[in-house]
């Protein structure tokens, strides 16, 4: 008898747990459709909405996967561009703010679809309309997809542990070191090029997530992390364990929103929206909010 009572109690607890989860999920579902909880976006959204009602950009010819919604693919693990808020389900970040504002300009809702960086490009036009995930515009990528006008400049940078006094004046000073990069990012491509051409002898450790790279740096598995300066800035804002010792200001990279190659109408609409946001100072404002005032 005792056992039966115990198992009933267990079942009840489990059932309540499941119901609890269910409720939370439902709540977060509605949230992800309108991810405007960050102070920056909330502050500007009202003004954006006012403008949009004044002169909306014409999107009559634009093909979308679902009507009235701009579906956005993003690898949500790349702060400060995209990350989950404390509740673990709401995507926030620079990219999220930008794409939300763009969608507002177009009179669309935003639906952020979290996807792995591997294969993020294959999903454009299939699972989502655009990909906005700190994507560098490169000639190779331009062959297979369209890009919006760039919305942020980025430099490759070298990050060390805060207590490391090594002098890094250029990438050539990484000779003989072990570095971590995020797999298949521009940092990976650049460093692999330095290695394969024989410019420097360096061990490259490629990780799926940038957070793994920083953990490896902190644990002492690697000597340095080569990463986008924007991401490094964001990390340094929230931690004293690291420092940026070098920024390759000679070779700037530009991030753009990637659009399916057979959807030039959407590209045009997004470019118009970005131009308006730039003119209003919204992009600079959002940049300052997410990256501090270290912008060059």
């Amino acid at each position, binding site marked *: 008898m005792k056992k039966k009572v115990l198992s009933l109690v267990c079942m009840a607890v489990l059932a309540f747990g499941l119901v609890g989860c269910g409720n939370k999920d439902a709540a977060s579902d509605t949230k992800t459709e309108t991810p405007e909880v960050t102070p920056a976006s909330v502050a500007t959204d009202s003004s954006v909405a006012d403008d949009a009602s004044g002169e909306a950009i014409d999107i009559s010819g634009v093909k979308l996967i679902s009507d009235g919604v701009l579906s956005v693919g993003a690898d949500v693990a790349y702060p400060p561009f995209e990350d989950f808020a404390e509740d673990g389900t709401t995507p926030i970040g620079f990219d999220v703010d930008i794409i939300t504002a763009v969608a507002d300009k177009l009179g669309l809702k935003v639906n952020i679809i979290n996807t792995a960086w*591997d294969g993020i490009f294959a999903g454009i036009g299939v699972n989502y309309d655009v990909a906005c995930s700190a994507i560098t515009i490169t000639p190779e990528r331009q062959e297979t997809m369209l890009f919006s006008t760039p919305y942020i400049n980025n430099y490759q940078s070298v990050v060390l542990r805060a207590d490391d006094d090594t002098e890094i004046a250029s990438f050539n000073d990484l000779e003989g070191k072990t570095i*971590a990069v995020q*797999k*298949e990012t521009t940092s990976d491509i650049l460093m692999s090029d330095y290695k394969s051409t024989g410019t420097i002898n360096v061990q490259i450790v490629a990780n799926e997530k940038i957070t*793994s790279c920083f953990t490896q740096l902190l644990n002492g*598995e690697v000597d340095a992390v080569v990463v986008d300066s924007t991401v490094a800035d964001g990390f340094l804002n929230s931690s004293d364990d690291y420092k940026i010792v070098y920024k390759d200001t000679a070779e700037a990279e530009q991030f753009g929103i990637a659009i399916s190659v057979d959807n030039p109408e959407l590209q045009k609409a997004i470019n118009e929206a970005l131009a308006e946001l730039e003119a209003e100072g919204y992009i600079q404002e959002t940049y300052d909010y997410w990256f501090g005032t270290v912008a060059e």
Partner: protein
Amino acid sequence: MKKFDIKKYLKTIIILCVILVAVVILAVLKPSETDLFKNTSPEMQKMIEQDANSTRKRVTVTYNNLLIINYASLSTSGAKVMSEKYVGFLGKVYPADKGGMKITGQMVNYTYRMLGCGENLMHGAKLTITLTTLTVLFGVLLGTILALGKISKNKILSKISGAYIFFFRGTPLLIQLFVVYFTVPGMFGFAWRDVFSSSDPEAVFKGAFVASVIAFALNSGAYCAEIVRSAIQSIDKGQFEAAKALGMTYRQTMTRIIIPQSVRRMIPNVSNEFIMVLKDASLVFAISLMDITTISKNIMTSEGSYLVFIPALIIYLLITAFFGFVFNKIEKKFSVYE
């Protein structure tokens, strides 16, 4: 032991010999490395000369030698992309810029990278094979100890083994791998890399490899424990009693009578576990090691070539075919006890 019956194997031997001769002929006729690079355009040669004294070199030279065929490519990065590719086969050098030769070149290059040629044991197929073999080896050893613990009459020993098996079967391997590689060193303030000398440039990969062998073996041990336990318990109880009646101790009964018989019953399940680990090995992508799956996915994202998955499948099948054969032989050898 039966006398070696040559007639039975004659067909196989002939086929193997023909293949061997063909490979040798193709390997001998294959153009040399210098031949492959002979056709390099003057533009590219100029770039290479410039690189010699430059601090930022631009030309990537690749040379892949795959026994019967070889592939060379020269390419530059930057705004003006130059690229030259050649495939060498049967004494001739073919340019591999388009058409069938381009695909052949890609296949040679992808296969070379996935096999981990020109790299140490911590890359590609070599990594997959070494990691799987070590995992199953340690896993079976650990599993035997755990199984004996679990069926032992000692209550504490039995409970500890049971708890271990419960824990490692009840949690995902990927998280165990993360804990071994990130959490444990972070908490105790050491780095896996420091296990090896600091002057070793490959230390970081070796460290990750050690961590993954530990995580995989701990996990596989739990699964193997159940395999070993079921094999031991499947032996007829009468044999225990007979051994006891003959005055044998528990240890003697186990080592001389029960375990030798149960090995044969274990083999099919261990072989299953081996193949599972072989495919699970791709989880090491999470701690920066590159196995076959990770490399093929990388090639897919960087070059957008879905063709890469065909050699990947073939490599996996060849590995499983080989180890399936080995396990078959072991099983046959041990079946003499029954």
